[in-house]
């Protein structure tokens, strides 16, 4: 019951909290030094026309930036920003990426990395006089709780509460299934076999849902339902191993034999799952955050506003799964009683 309530809170909160403002796109993408640049910027959740104190910069590195000469908000989400790019530069590199930073009192400050690629022409003199004057201080801070804006992800960042939490909950249910499998092998109590099977079944349901939801998410962000990403393929293998568990349970009619086989297979499947899902994806490149390196539970990918709903979502889905498993357990126990009688 608590699980359902928490899940409803996650659903409402996760859907209603707005995203932070961000830059969807900006044109042109290239410029040369000495140009006067009219940059068409399309924003998301921005207030380009209502906010009064609009400021913008093109940032070269941590100390060098130029301020916009003019900011014209066509409407809330479209603006034309005029930059005068000096001939003289503080760097001698041929091509330099610049970060666009926009700041106003409603949206706070937000940035678009690599918004503009500066191609250097005519052997400029090395000078930073024009680039050091930008006043990048007193940036405003937006009020209210908002989820981070990420390019490509956009609103789909909310899927973290459902897709990712589903996998975490699946793992918790699998641990419960493993515990009961071990307990069955130790005690030989048939009730543990029932519990192990029920937890595993719900976990498999969660896994299949996790694959389906991931597929939908991938269609919107990676533009395909299935990529050759390691994590996807390894998870698919892990799911197949667990699906074989269901087949195994259905295959043997002998009670004791089936229970023993299933319990041993659960231990094997769980041990196979850990390298498949947690080790191999981290050893190679992957589209999933945190793979090919360290876990993603840090930085801006999962900031405190997301955590506020992400962790409750894991708890909610685990409780919901436990409840569903308990329904199955009660059904199996009843069935057991009736068939023992007859």
């Amino acid at each position, binding site marked *: 019951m608590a699980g359902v309530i928490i899940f409803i809170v996650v659903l409402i909160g996760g859907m209603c909290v707005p995203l932070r403002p961000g830059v969807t796109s900006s044109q042109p993408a290239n410029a040369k030094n000495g140009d006067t640049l009219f940059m068409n910027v399309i924003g998301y959740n921005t207030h380009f026309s209502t906010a009064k104190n609009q400021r913008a910069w093109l940032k070269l590195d941590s100390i060098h930036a130029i301020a916009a000469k003019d900011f014209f908000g066509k409407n809330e989400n479209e603006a034309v920003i005029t930059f005068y790019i000096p001939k003289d530069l503080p760097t001698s590199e041929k091509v330099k990426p610049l970060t666009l930073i926009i700041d106003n009192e409603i949206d706070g400050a937000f940035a678009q990395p690599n918004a503009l690629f500066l191609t250097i022409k005519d052997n400029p003199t090395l000078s930073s006089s024009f680039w050091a004057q930008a006043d990048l201080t007193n940036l405003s801070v937006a009020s209210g709780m908002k989820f981070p804006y990420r390019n490509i992800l956009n609103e*789909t960042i909310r899927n973290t509460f459902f897709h990712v939490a589903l996998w975490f909950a699946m793992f918790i249910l699998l641990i419960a299934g493993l515990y009961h499998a071990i307990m069955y092998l130790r005690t030989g109590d048939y009730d543990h076999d029932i519990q192990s099977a029920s937890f595993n079944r719900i976990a498999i349901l969660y896994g299949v849902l996790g694959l389906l939801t991931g597929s939908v998410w991938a269609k919107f962000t990676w533009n395909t339902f299935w990529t050759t990403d390691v994590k996807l393929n390894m998870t698919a293998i892990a799911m197949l191993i667990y699906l074989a568990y269901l087949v195994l349970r259905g295959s043997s009619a002998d009670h004791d034999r089936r229970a023993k086989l299933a319990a041993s297979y659960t231990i094997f499947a769980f041990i196979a799952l850990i390298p498949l899902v947690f080790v191999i994806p981290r050893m190679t490149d992957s589209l999933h955050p945190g793979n090919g390196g360290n876990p993603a539970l840090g930085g801006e990918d999962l900031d405190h506003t997301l955590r506020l709903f992400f962790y409750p979502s894991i708890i909610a889905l685990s409780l919901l799964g436990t409840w569903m498993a308990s329904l199955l357990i009660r059904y199996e126990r009843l069935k057991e009683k009736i068939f023992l009688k007859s």
Partner: protein
Amino acid sequence: MNNLLKIKKFVATIIIMMANIDLVSGQNYPSDFLRSTGKIYSVALVIAIIFIGIVFFLFRLDNKLTKLENHIKNEQ
């Protein structure tokens, strides 16, 4: 036999629903439709899939319980 028919009907309904979702998301609208609202429809789809999954579980449990009930009835 009756239960098998029920499951078949259920699966057919799900397939038709899926087909409709695909129709709405892919073909009848320009592809910009998906992206025009910051891809919020993907979140809606994800929640719908989870809901369908849970309903699928409940439906199967319902069928199993019906079988058990019938079994008890036949014994009495």
